[in-house]
């Protein structure tokens, strides 16, 4: 067990053309090439994907759930950012 812990990677898969890559899980691999191969074996055994991204988990900076209010509350009170906030007379039709 002298070997250092194998790095963790986050796996993102594009399931169909036209869709974004979506996070589907994580895995351990010593390098990017092996991470891609492992992701193929682990997450696309039933044709789930057309394209895979692997990203070292250590490269991800995440927001702190404790800061949830500070981060996201300001957006909640700004309903004027949504189209339904504005009144358009029915006679004008679809806008």
């Amino acid at each position, binding site marked *: 067990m002298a*070997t250092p812990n194998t790095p*963790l990677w986050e796996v993102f898969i594009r399931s169909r053309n036209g869709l974004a890559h979506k996070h589907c*899980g994580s*895995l351990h691999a*010593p*390098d990017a090439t092996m991470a891609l191969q492992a992701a193929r074996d*682990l997450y696309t*055994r039933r044709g789930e994907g057309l394209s895979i991204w692997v990203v070292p988990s250590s490269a991800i900076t995440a927001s702190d759930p404790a800061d949830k209010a500070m981060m996201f509350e300001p957006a909640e009170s700004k309903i004027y950012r949504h189209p339904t906030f504005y009144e358009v007379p029915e006679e004008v039709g679809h806008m």
Partner: protein
Amino acid sequence: MYTQALNSPEEGSLAEDAVRASRFQARIDAEERIEPNDWMPAAYRKTLVRQISQHAHSEIVGMLPEGNWITRAPSLRRKAALLAKVQDECGHGLYLYAAAETLGASREELVDAMLAGKAKYSSIFNYPTLTWADIGVIGWLVDGAAIMNQIPLCRCSYGPYARAMIRVCKEESFHQRQGYEIMLTLCRGTAEQKAMAQDALNRWWWPVLMMFGPPDQASQHSDTSTKWKIKRFSNDELRQKFIDATVPQAQYLGLTIPDPEMTQDEQGHWRHGPIDWNEFKQVLAGNGPCNRDRLAARRKAHADGAWVREAAAAYAEKRARRQMAQAAE
């Protein structure tokens, strides 16, 4: 995929921040999912690491009894299916290890605990697969019991565990169907083949019922797990659901459930006779027919793979050094 309620006793929880604990419980009660970086009581974290890693170990050890028959599968069709199934079990183990790691445990420490014999895995994998019919019974009943356990876990309060379970359950249905198909083929075959199917059912029936864990009155900490919405049905409830689903399937095969006391009550439930819980305790304590074999096989596989892990790590390090040197030029 194979879960088991092992119900080992929980140590006393530390004094937690009462306000945060009640806020946490309120989120659980509101069916909110708990995510890795959210605050959680230490006991919740510990329970989950234990349960998820035991579940992962079960998947990995579970490859052994079935792997035993890959080279002896009776046709190419059966062999391809069994290979795919065993590969799925490995995948399920890896999804689960990843879920346990989101709680702060490292893969290496989890695997080491299993290899050292300190971590538990489902008792069912300490039974041998003596004939090809055992592969049919494992798919039909062991995976069938696992599905009963796992479907409610798709709604477990811990997000990463619930998501892993959704993936697993989608893949699990193939396992059960391929097992039942093997049984159906044997039961429609020669008298000897049918006798082999019955013999496999006789040997596996009781150990499969034990997969749901001890009876409710003997189960120590289901209460906390229920409060935290990790567990949504009791061991006995799940066992009953499984039996009610399975008895008609056995009847269709023309097989007899090896329980002379099995009767149907007025509500239509099939009631089983007494389970030998002493056997369950013995198997969990390491005295089942294959406990030593299974651990020895895992240790050998881990030791035999050591040079691969070392070589891959050395190669990755060399490449990284070279890239650094090139970037510095």
